[in-house]
């Protein structure tokens, strides 16, 4: 079987953008926000979440999904288009994607910071994929390599201030 990150990199492109079941869609951000809040500097809670390898795996998948959506949105945005309405909807898609990139990365960061289980699980994933560090995989590896920096940014904040997080994370992601 191919390593997880190789499979992540070859994820199909035609996912439903950000709009799945309406009800489900509305709960994504707040569920992530709750998980980030409750796991913040709380080792027992981090351990509960990290104890499920499937959860870590899916969280990583979701992160990559939104991360790619955000950057694909950026690229397509640089092409001039006359359809203003389309632009607005893309803008809003991108900001939803950025919000979800931030939240899922925030949660991954908390887990890696506080739970040894999560640390070794994610470490194993990045190790097994280092041999495949080219093509679409590179951005994911770089994103993972960025975890310590983002962890440091988050670690210094007791409250997940929306504005601060957006500025910092945006800068980080631009450099990845």
């Amino acid at each position: 079987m191919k390593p997880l990150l190789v499979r992540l990199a070859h994820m199909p492109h035609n996912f439903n953008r950000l709009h799945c079941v309406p009800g489900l869609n509305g709960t994504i951000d707040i569920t992530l926000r709750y998980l980030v809040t409750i796991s913040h500097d709380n080792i027992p809670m981090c351990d509960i979440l990290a104890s499920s390898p499937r959860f870590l795996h899916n969280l990583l998948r979701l992160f990559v999904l939104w991360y790619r959506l955000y950057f694909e949105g950026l690229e397509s945005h640089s092409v001039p288009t006359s359809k203003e309405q389309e632009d607005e909807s893309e803008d809003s898609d991108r900001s939803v994607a950025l919000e979800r990139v931030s939240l899922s990365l925030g949660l991954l960061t908390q887990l890696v910071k506080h739970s040894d289980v999560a640390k070794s699980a994610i470490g194993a994933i990045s190790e097994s994929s280092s041999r495949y560090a080219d093509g679409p995989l590179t951005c994911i590896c770089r994103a993972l390599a960025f975890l310590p920096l983002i962890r440091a940014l988050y670690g210094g904040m007791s409250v997940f201030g929306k504005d601060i997080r957006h500025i910092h994370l945006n800068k980080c992601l631009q450099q990845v």
Partner: protein
Amino acid sequence: MLASESLLRISELGQALDSDIYDALVGSLITEVSHIPKLGASPSINEDSGHDFRHIQNCLGIAVSFLSQQATNHTMEHAGDQETLLALLAQYVNLWPSQLVSHEASSGAFSSHAS
């Protein structure tokens, strides 16, 4: 449902909620989240279940504002309930990728799971 919307409004106004209310919220969330159908298994989520999602969304919103008002959440009472909720929410998150990646379910390109 009505109660959760009123509470959401109150918490948005910056009123402090006491921990009894938080415990009740966690209990309510455990019930609601455990009743979410297996999204991939059912043919589709219909409009009726949008109601439950709205309730979950409200309760989580209040819970987040409650937790962010606390200096620390290490001393939370009824940690057991919170752990149950956390495990349920983790299962809920596990359902998302198949809902967000439309192609995945049919192609099976991504069907294997880490064990």
